[in-house]
């Protein structure tokens, strides 16, 4: 890349003037143009992610600290091929460029990124963007790679053709980035200049022939396509090896979650408990201590504990995505996914949901078709996430005898566990099928999948991705968790009782508000084989599934009748075999997870879908648990 990116093709430099009016810059470019890498480089870690108001398009903003311009806000627009307003992404982009997007400042300048390996096609976006009339810097990304592979372009000629400055850059290694602050510094001088008149491009065909003309006139020579990618695909998309390796990847995700992630999360959970214990003497004893430690900290820990697993999963998926393999996985899975009415792109979220539905739902952003994406979001919580495991393990250990079949090769307990996984999977597929043939039936949106060239994932982009996701996870899930935890704690401690000594005390659990709630819902859950104590567990598990286990522990611990018994033995006081199996199937289907509810609310931008989803899953869970309980009773269980 020696020197290639050092000389941005600028118009004759003008005397620098203070760029007082410059505040907001937008970054725009086609998908796979390296836009995210550039955004990360320009903003460093000073970025925030939200949705544009009223739509599900993600809005990233950050201060341009990467080029020493903390005073400027950079807005990352979605990756788009054109400004044709048929897609939500393009409509958002147009509104932002025109300064009509509510809550988003009108941009003062535009950075247009293009992948110089495929410049002709990428130029199709240049005409409509430049026609918006904003000062624009055209960035030819991956110029180093292009030149390495024998391609070339006359950037000066291109700048003349487009009437805008052009710079060759490499977002991956930072080459040519100096052009960006220079442009930001100078653009105020250019604002008055009349931009060149560009042709109005009515349709894609004329846009393409315009782009082809421009690339001819600027001596663009596309680089040789890389044989490497096709050779790798000869194996990864091979008729036999392809699916086999695909399976290895699927199993790999499980392995990561179970064998590495679980101990990490357990260890992290231990640390969190110890932090709570260390803080205990520092706090005034009494209700303040109880509220902070037993209420808030416990609730926050119950979520924080999943962070190692989630980050590990994101690292794993990040490597697959950055390398380009995920597109191949979507290609391989497409045939299977279409049988349930979805396409290959829905496969990745469903796979990640075995760890946690929250990142999985965030991963549905790659599905362009809004209805397909919604259907995927709605079925994702059926996949058996890691939070169900503690509940399953407890109930199986307590109620399922340890019988082995096939000379110890297959245990009854393993079989029950596998059937629970299968039940969730089948419910997800069945629901997807149902949704896609009814309310989310979409006009046949074709599956169009670009297979990018394989690239080596960079440490920088992987770590940025992890920090980013951790932050989103903590902030969005954290708020809800904190609120619900506090409410639950308060409900468990009301009404406040006066003791004989005149101090205040919490009521017995059965007498507390939440205890009364447990009694109140008992009629609804009695047909499933659950009593009021299980009811309290269920209520508390709405916070997060695994809270059920700690709630039951607290309940039995405070009851003199069961105090001496282990949790497993104590459960036999409240559950029959039918009730226990019913409870497991209830957990397989019900959506007891406020983090998931919060993320669905965020991703769909309405309360409608999380409510519909919660009610549907609850109804299915109730019916299935009822059926299981009564079937076991009928067989004399």
């Amino acid at each position: 890349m020696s020197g290639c990116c050092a000389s941005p093709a600028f118009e004759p430099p003008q005397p620098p003037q203070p760029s007082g009016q410059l505040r907001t810059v937008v970054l725009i470019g086609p998908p796979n143009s390296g836009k995210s890498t550039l955004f990360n480089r320009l903003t460093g870690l000073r970025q925030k992610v939200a949705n544009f108001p009223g739509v599900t398009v993600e809005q990233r903003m950050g201060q341009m600290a990467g080029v020493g311009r903390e005073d400027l806000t950079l807005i990352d627009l979605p990756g788009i091929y054109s400004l044709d307003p048929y897609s939500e992404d393009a409509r958002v982009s147009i509104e932002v460029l025109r300064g009509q997007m509510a809550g988003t400042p009108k941009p003062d300048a535009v950075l247009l990124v293009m992948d110089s390996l495929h410049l002709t096609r990428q130029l199709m976006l240049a005409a409509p963007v430049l026609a918006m009339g904003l000062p624009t810097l055209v960035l030819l990304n991956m110029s180093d790679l292009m030149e390495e592979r024998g391609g070339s372009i006359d950037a000066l000629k291109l700048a003349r053709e487009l009437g805008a400055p052009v710079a060759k850059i490499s977002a991956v290694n930072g080459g040519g980035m100096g052009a960006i602050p220079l442009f930001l510094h100078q653009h105020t001088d250019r604002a008055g200049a009349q931009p060149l008149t560009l042709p109005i491009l009515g349709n894609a065909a004329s846009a393409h022939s315009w782009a082809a003309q421009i690339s001819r006139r600027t001596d663009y020579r596309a680089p040789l396509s890389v044989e490497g990618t096709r050779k790798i695909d000869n194996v990864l998309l091979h008729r036999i090896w392809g699916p086999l390796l695909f399976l290895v990847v699927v199993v790999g995700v499980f392995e990561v979650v179970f064998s590495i992630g679980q101990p990490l999360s357990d260890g992290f959970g231990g640390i969190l408990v110890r932090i709570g214990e260390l803080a205990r003497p520092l706090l005034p004893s009494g209700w303040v201590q109880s509220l902070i430690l037993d209420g808030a900290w416990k609730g926050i820990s119950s979520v924080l504990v999943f962070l190692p697993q989630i980050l590990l999963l994101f690292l794993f998926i990040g490597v697959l995505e950055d390398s380009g393999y995920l597109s191949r996985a979507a290609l391989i899975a497409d045939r299977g996914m279409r049988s349930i009415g979805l396409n290959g792109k829905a496969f990745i979220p469903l796979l990640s949901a075995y760890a946690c539905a929250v990142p999985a739902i965030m991963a549905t952003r790659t599905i362009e078709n809004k209805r397909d994406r919604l259907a995927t979001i709605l079925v994702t919580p059926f996949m058996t996430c890691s939070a169900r495991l503690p509940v399953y393990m407890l109930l199986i250990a307590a109620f399922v005898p340890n019988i082995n079949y096939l000379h110890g090769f297959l245990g009854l307990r393993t079989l029950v566990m596998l059937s629970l996984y299968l039940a969730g999977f089948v419910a997800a597929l069945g629901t997807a099928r149902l949704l896609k043939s009814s309310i989310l039936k979409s006009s046949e949106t074709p599956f169009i999948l670009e297979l990018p060239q394989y690239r080596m994932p960079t440490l920088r982009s992987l770590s940025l991705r992890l920090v980013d996701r951790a932050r989103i996870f903590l902030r969005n899930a954290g708020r809800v968790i904190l609120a619900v935890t506090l409410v639950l704690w308060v409900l468990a401690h009301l009404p406040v009782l006066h003791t004989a000594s005149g101090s205040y005390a919490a009521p017995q659990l059965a007498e507390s508000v939440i205890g009364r709630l447990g009694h109140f819902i008992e009629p609804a859950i009695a047909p499933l084989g659950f009593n009021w104590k299980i009811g309290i567990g269920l209520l508390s598990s709405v916070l997060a599934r695994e809270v059920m286990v700690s709630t039951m522990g607290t309940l039995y611990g405070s009851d003199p009748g069961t105090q001496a018994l282990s949790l497993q033995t104590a459960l036999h006081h409240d559950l029959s075999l039918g009730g226990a199996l019913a409870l497991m199937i209830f957990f397989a289907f019900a959506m007891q997870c406020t983090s998931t509810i919060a993320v669905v609310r965020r991703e769909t931008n309405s309360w409608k879908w999380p409510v519909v989803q919660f009610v549907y899953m609850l109804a299915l869970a109730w019916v299935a648990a009822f059926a299981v309980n009564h079937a076991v009773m009928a067989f004399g269980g």
Partner: protein
Amino acid sequence: MSVLSQLNVGESGVLEDLDLPESVQNHLMHMGFVPNALVTALRRAPAGDPTVYAIDGMEIALRRETAAAIHVRAAEVPEAVGQKEAASQKTEGQKTEDQRIAASGQFEAAQ
């Protein structure tokens, strides 16, 4: 005149027109599926569908029913290029200017 889905793996065609809803058509055109572009069927997914096509230097996968709505005509010059390309993949031999243009998808059959 035939449709894209009829191309066997390794065969090329020259795009004539697209018979798809406008939004889809626009999307595909912005991905390089424009009249007179050279398309090569590269490989089928392990399940036999979708198929990966090389166009404009990119690899794009389409399902059979989408490819069936894209009309192509026989590529006369490109046919030879397609064979050369196939040959060059096998032999890894020296590349002529023709091949590098074809490989990078810059070739426009109409010109």
